[in-house]
């Protein structure tokens, strides 16, 4: 049975849709809110802001996170900033322009109405955060400062040094703390959701594992919200936190929620290159650096050789011998082209042999011109903490020599399919922030992830969830003493027992690294029919190996990190295949998804709107069974789709 996809996009003018929708949906009275329970999984910007806002409204909220405190969620690591259409710079920004840039940046593969709403509420986010005491950067006149980010020609990015995500999360976490103190929200740190419970076709709660004691617990609620971020760690090496994982989202998929566009992965252009095979984690250098940094490789191969050998320093290369390839190829946007474009351009130069380190997988990000123009002090003020971090990691002083950077997996635009209300195909189950698929199409613009997380949590979900819960005001407390809960708990316990009993030869990380290699080599920055078929076959074989040869030490009823990792890898081993299948199906290039067979003469992504102007939504059919795909056709009522152009 194919999925039934009703986007519930409201009718009417683009700019009126959200207002009309809010007026049309139902609300729940304060007295009734007190009777309704909501579970939120994840405490990043989406989860924390939703939990705080829903608690304030009077619902009973339970919030879960795998870290020791809600404040640690990976939103905290976002560096550069958050977009909003304030037009404080008087550079002719507007809600429409932010909407347009976002949908164009996503290569016309996002839902129009959702993106417009995102732009519309963006301004409220800045107001909210300022009121919470978020110390945004300010001008000498005391008003808020802005900077530029990729994919935009206006300055609309608000920031707090290189720690914007941290400050916004601390704001949301503070709002959450206020509600925890008030008793409307109960926090469950070091707890991991291992299954979603569906009964009578509706989400009724979760099965969670207490990561300290190993206890398996049942939690019931009238609605469940997944805010667990993306699944980039399927690649093993990424800029995601070590604990970030795709398992909560994948359990929803297993239980019947549609999973949309899983192949849309963002490879971020400015990360510190890989140094060896023992690496566990890649580090991002903020996109904000592209405001003042210029990206280049030498024009001559002999200079590349000399730099690799160490006989020449990058600063020895004369200006005329440098290829500022982004400025050359994209004069209008220069170094501030969107991430997918910048990443592919770096790959193109490295494939041609111009990579500047021993592995041939690095390009320069150079501040020489900016330091000459603005002085070292100004650059230090703007990016000091990032420069320090770079030096700490690489032992190179970026004030004197250019940084080396290379693209790395950073974000996943794909995710759980949601309608305009952010509800999944399972009634009562919602997905917000990076966990859903809705707003970024095939490529996310910089400084838009923070915007989406907070838009969903503060300003969208608190309204739309009421529409569903208004039908539950007569419903009693959800009982966890039911066959559905018992069955889900049993399945979780059996999975854990099975994992602990295999006692094979390979560690969880051994297998995860192999999966990461398959993914990076075949489902990475450039994909072909052949590479994707290879990936699917290799992942299937690796999955079999996992289930017969993995070694998970320790016990089920204790603090056991190996077991946590094994449970997550089970899902990565299926998710990786799903990503490859989706990429194989999408015979076009768009945004971060680049099929080498489909490119323009000058190597740009070539979309096929006649065939692929849809979101591919997958339905789970079993571990070794092909999933079924249903299309949500993306009707563009207001925007004309064009070949993306960052040249003029």
């Amino acid at each position, binding site marked *: 049975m194919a999925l039934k996809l009703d986007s519930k996009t409201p009718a009417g003018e683009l700019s009126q849709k959200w207002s009309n929708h809010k007026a049309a949906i139902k609300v729940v009275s304060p007295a009734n809110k007190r009777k309704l329970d909501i579970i939120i999984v994840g405490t990043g910007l989406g989860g924390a802001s939703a939990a705080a806002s829903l608690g304030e409204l009077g619902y009973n909220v339970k919030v879960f996170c795998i870290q020791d405190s809600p404040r640690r969620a990976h939103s905290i690591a976002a560096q550069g900033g958050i977009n909003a259409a304030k037009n404080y710079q008087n550079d002719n920004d507007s809600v429409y322009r932010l909407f347009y840039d976002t949908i164009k940046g996503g290569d016309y593969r996002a839902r129009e109405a959702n993106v417009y709403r995102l732009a519309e509420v963006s301004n409220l986010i800045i*107001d909210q955060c300022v009121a919470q005491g978020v110390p945004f950067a300010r001008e000498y006149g005391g008003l808020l400062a802005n900077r530029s980010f990729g994919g935009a020609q206006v300055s609309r990015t608000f920031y707090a040094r290189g720690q914007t995500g941290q400050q916004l999360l601390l704001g949301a976490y503070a709002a959450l703390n206020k509600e925890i103190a008030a008793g409307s929200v109960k926090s469950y740190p070091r707890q991991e959701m291992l299954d979603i419970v569906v009964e009578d076709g509706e989400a009724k709660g979760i099965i969670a594992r207490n990561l300290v004691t190993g206890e398996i617990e049942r939690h019931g609620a009238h609605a469940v919200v997944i805010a667990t971020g993306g699944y980039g760690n399927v690649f093993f090496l990424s800029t995601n936190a070590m604990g970030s994982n795709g398992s909560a989202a994948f359990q929803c998929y297993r239980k019947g929620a549609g999973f949309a566009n899983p192949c849309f992965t963002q490879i971020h252009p400015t990360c510190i290159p890989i140094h060896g095979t023992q690496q566990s984690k890649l580090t991002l250098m903020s996109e904000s650096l592209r405001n003042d940094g210029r990206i280049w490789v030498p024009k001559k191969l002999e200079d590349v050789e000399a730099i690799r050998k160490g006989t020449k320093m990058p600063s020895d290369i004369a200006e005329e011998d440098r290829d500022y390839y982004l400025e050359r190829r994209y004069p209008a946007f220069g170094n501030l082209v969107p991430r997918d474009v910048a990443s592919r351009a770096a790959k193109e130069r490295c494939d041609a042999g111009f990579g500047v380190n021993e592995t041939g997988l690095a390009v320069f990000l150079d501040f020489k011109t900016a330091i000459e123009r603005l002085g070292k002090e100004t650059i230090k003020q703007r990016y000091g903490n990032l420069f320090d971090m770079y030096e700490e990691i690489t032992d190179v002083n970026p004030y004197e020599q250019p940084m080396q950077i290379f693209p790395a997996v950073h974000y996943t635009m794909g995710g759980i399919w949601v309608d305009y209300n952010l509800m999944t195909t399972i009634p009562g189950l919602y997905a917000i922030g990076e966990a859903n698929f809705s707003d970024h199409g095939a490529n996310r613009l910089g400084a838009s992830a923070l915007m989406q997380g907070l838009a969903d949590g503060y300003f969208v979900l608190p309204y739309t969830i009421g529409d569903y819960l208004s039908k539950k005001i007569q419903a009693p407390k959800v009982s966890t003493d039911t066959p559905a809960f018992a069955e889900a708990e049993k399945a979780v316990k059996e999975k854990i027992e099975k994992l602990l009993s295999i006692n094979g030869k390979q560690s969880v990380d051994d297998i995860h690294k192999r999966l990461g290699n398959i993914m990076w080599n075949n489902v990475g920055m450039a994909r072909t029919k052949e590479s994707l078929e290879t990936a699917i076959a290799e992942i299937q074989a690796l999955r079999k190996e996992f289930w017969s040869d993995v070694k998970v030490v320790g016990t089920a009823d*204790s603090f056991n990190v*190996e077991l946590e990792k094994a449970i997550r890898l089970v899902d990565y081993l299926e998710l990786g295949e799903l990503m490859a299948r989706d990429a194989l199906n999408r015979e076009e290039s768009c945004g971060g998804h680049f099929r080498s067979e489909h490119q323009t003469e000058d190597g740009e992504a070539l979309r096929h709107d006649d065939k692929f102007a849809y979101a591919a939504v997958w339905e789970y059919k079993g571990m070794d069974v092909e999933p079924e795909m249903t299309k949500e056709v993306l009707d563009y009522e207001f925007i004309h789709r064009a070949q993306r152009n960052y040249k003029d």
Partner: protein
Amino acid sequence: MNFTLKIWRQKDAKSKGGFETYKVSNISPDTSFLEMLDILNNDLVHEGKEPVAFDHDCREGICGMCSLHINGHAHGPSQAVTTCQMYMRKFKDGSTITIEPWRSAAFPVIKDLVVNRGAYDEILQAGGYVSVRTNSVPDGNAIPIPKADADESMDAAACVGCGACAATCKNGSAMLFVAARVSSLAKLPQGRVEGARRAKAMVAKMDELGFGNCTNTGACQAQCPKQISIAHIARLNREFLAAKFQD
């Protein structure tokens, strides 16, 4: 590079712990400290032994999840970095490295190097926020804030809540942590409204949870990976005293 590691092992909160010695070899100087522990752990798994439990997450020095006393220093011998941002080139080849969990009565050990820092959450829940409702706020530019104040607020807000200050303090005081939050909000007009209530409530909670008193030794500042200044403690004291006089 090769190292001998003396690591604190403790089965759970109730068990008694002790040091065990391990060897790691062929470590690249570019390996991070936590990657070095990953390598050790992978070896232990292959030997069928339980790996060393330690807290970590973002590995970019911002989430505050990693901890560790390394050779007696919170977050290791380097200044101004968290454990995850320390690289093996900072250690002498062939040396012995001692690794312990935070040692603070308020942060009980959960397992090996992992401790419970829930007390910091509780302190913030006592008042570390501005009581504004979602959507009940003025325009972001309605209140100009002098740049110097906003910058100072940001200096304090850089705190990652890792616990190094209390774990380092000989009195087990959480003053630097509390001061960072109180001071960050005190420098902004939005935070001033509840300033008195906040200072009193957070200090009272800190005392209730068994953290010690501050005797101005400055050890917290020296070990803070974000270099939060003890000047913020002075501001906390001022806020607290002013609040008490108002009573």
